[in-house]
């Protein structure tokens, strides 16, 4: 008689805990030197459960299948000249932001989880972190492969890692992840697996990816959903880690709460870029930032998750109320910032078309017409001597010391003013876009005074390809150092637009 197959639970137990051993001639402290300094107390690692019960053999099997499906779709798209069937070439500017801003974070997450997989003393979470490390590397690869097809035809895709380390708006995602990987293993996993993966990645990988599908970009939709299906496992890891730590010792509760408070706001500010992508950069829209926020954050996270966490003594993040108040302002503020400084960006922006402004007014009845529409009407008149028949902000903005976004966030309680906060620390003044970022700075000022702020670095002379020959040569030398070539300025004076018209000249349906 054939031997009975192992159940899922038995297999999981054998292939994770069953492969762990107790060290005899080296102390555990020497093996796991980072396990204690954050103040987290663990009594029993065996209390850890992974609901996905993922084992190595199952992992390879299903990940390989996910990859096969993705590459089949990518090949079909390429062979069919799929890029020509996109809704409009404007759409690709959101994908430029994605590939420059998010893909390098996937790689950093791969590194971060490799660190955690090495340094957590429990075999269960070590295994889960090890899978996640491989997942993140896979995400980097499939995203690069999807983008490399667009790179053959469009600007802005050619230099993602170089730009990620230098360009002003990319210091927003870069500094976010640098903050996480320079924390200890428990803070890192709370920041990324819990705050980012459970709460915020949904906004990027679900409604935005649905938008990609709606605009005809099947490879992006497929890598997005393929990545997010891994994120389901990551979300589970994040939730399990937090619950496990909360159950292990009551002293862990205030530490976890502080991390949740910090990383909610850090991640939320980072995700504001997605708000601008969804509301302004998708020619065909699925849902607004506000609708996504209500569904994925207010329903699923506040009404769902945080009701569950109440019994552990955990409350919703400190600045959640501010995020809710900002939901009708956020995407407009961020797109206006991106629009104003497009002369120094590796993507194009544009004045929304009249029907797009009507959509925005319908989705944001209390804010768009009142506080934002007039800016674009003025922008048509207030011309500058730069390419594109419209306004640019000639100058460099004050950046927030923590999130590094230019300080252009509307105060929802006083919508004709921007929020500006500052702190004096050791004789220097530091500026912040919000109470949330100011609060984060005050918890660890010695960390955030070291921030590499792109605008400051330009003024310090650290961002030129060659020393500028005069005031007019400052921005060109910065752009050269960024490796921005014909990637900047308004969409309607771009190579992308010129090519798009040429490729569609025999078709009646070109969006002009």
């Amino acid at each position, binding site marked *: 008689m054939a031997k009975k197959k192992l159940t899922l639970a038995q297999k999981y137990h054998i292939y994770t805990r069953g492969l762990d051993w107790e060290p005899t001639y080296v102390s555990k402290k020497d093996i796991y030197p980072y396990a204690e300094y954050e103040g987290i107390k663990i009594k029993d690692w065996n209390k850890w459960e992974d*609901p996905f019960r993922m084992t190595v053999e199952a992992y390879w099997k*299903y990940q390989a299948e996910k990859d096969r499906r993705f590459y089949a779709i990518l090949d079909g798209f390429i062979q069919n000249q799929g890029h020509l069937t996109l809704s409009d070439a404007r759409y690709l500017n959101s994908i430029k932001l994605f590939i420059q801003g998010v893909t390098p974070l996937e790689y950093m997450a791969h590194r971060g989880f490799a660190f955690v997989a090495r340094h957590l003393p429990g075999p269960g979470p070590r295994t889960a972190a090890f899978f996640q490390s491989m997942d993140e590397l896979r995400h980097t690869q499939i995203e690069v492969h999807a983008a490399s097809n667009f790179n053959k035809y469009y600007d802005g895709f050619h230099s993602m890692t170089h730009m990620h380390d230098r360009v002003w708006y990319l210091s927003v995602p870069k500094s976010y992840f640098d903050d996480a990987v320079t924390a200890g293993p428990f803070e890192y996993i709370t920041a990324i697996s819990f705050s980012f993966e459970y709460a915020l990645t949904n906004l990027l990988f679900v409604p935005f*990816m649905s*938008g990609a599908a709606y605009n005809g970009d099947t490879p992006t939709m497929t890598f997005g*959903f393929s990545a997010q*299906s891994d994120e389901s496992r990551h979300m589970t890891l994040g939730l399990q880690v937090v619950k496990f730590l909360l159950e292990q010792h009551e002293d862990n509760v205030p530490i976890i709460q502080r991390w949740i408070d910090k990383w909610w706001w850090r991640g939320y500010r980072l995700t504001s870029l997605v708000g601008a992508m969804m509301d302004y950069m998708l020619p065909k829209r699925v849902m607004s930032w506000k609708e996504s926020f209500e569904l994925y954050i*207010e329903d699923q996270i506040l009404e769902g998750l945080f*009701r569950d966490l109440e019994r552990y003594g955990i409350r919703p993040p400190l600045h959640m109320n501010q995020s809710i108040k900002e939901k009708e302002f956020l995407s407009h503020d961020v797109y206006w910032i991106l629009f104003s400084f497009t002369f120094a960006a590796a993507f194009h922006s544009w004045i929304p078309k009249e029907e797009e402004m009507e959509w925005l007014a319908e989705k944001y009845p209390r804010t768009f017409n009142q506080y934002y529409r007039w800016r674009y009407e003025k922008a048509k008149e207030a011309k500058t001597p730069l390419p594109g028949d419209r306004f640019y902000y000639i100058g460099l903005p004050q950046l927030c010391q923590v999130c590094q976004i230019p300080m252009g966030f509307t105060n929802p309680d006083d919508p004709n003013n921007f929020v500006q906060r500052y702190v004096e620390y050791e004789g220097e003044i530091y500026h912040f876009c919000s109470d949330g970022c100011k609060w984060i700075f005050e918890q660890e000022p010695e960390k955030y005074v070291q921030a590499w702020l792109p605008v400051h670095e330009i003024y310090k002379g650290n961002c030129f390809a060659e020393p500028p020959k005069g005031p007019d040569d400052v921005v060109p030398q910065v752009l050269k150092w960024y490796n921005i070539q014909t990637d900047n300025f308004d969409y309607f004076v771009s190579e992308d637009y010129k090519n798009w018209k040429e490729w569609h000249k025999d078709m009646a349906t070109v969006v002009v």
Partner: protein
Amino acid sequence: MTAVETKRERFVAVDLQKTEEGYNVLQAILKDNPGTRIDEFPGYYKVKHPEKLIIKRETVESFMGRSWDTQEFNLVIISYAGNFAEWDDEKILIQWDTHM
């Protein structure tokens, strides 16, 4: 302590890919979970239930017309809201810990 004011709803959810397999899993969910609501978006279904969602191997197999391992759920899920309260060879159960 910050009181957070929302007047939103509480549910568990699973976001499924709009594929042939995703459709079969969706049919199985509808059969085994009366009261399930579906929101359709480009590329995906959002499947919601006020209390819990159960996915049974046997029901999925009846729609697929072949054998189906519960771990194949990894190939159709995009995201979810809730906890995986149970995941074994026969079923997957998603619910919050504190019941409504």
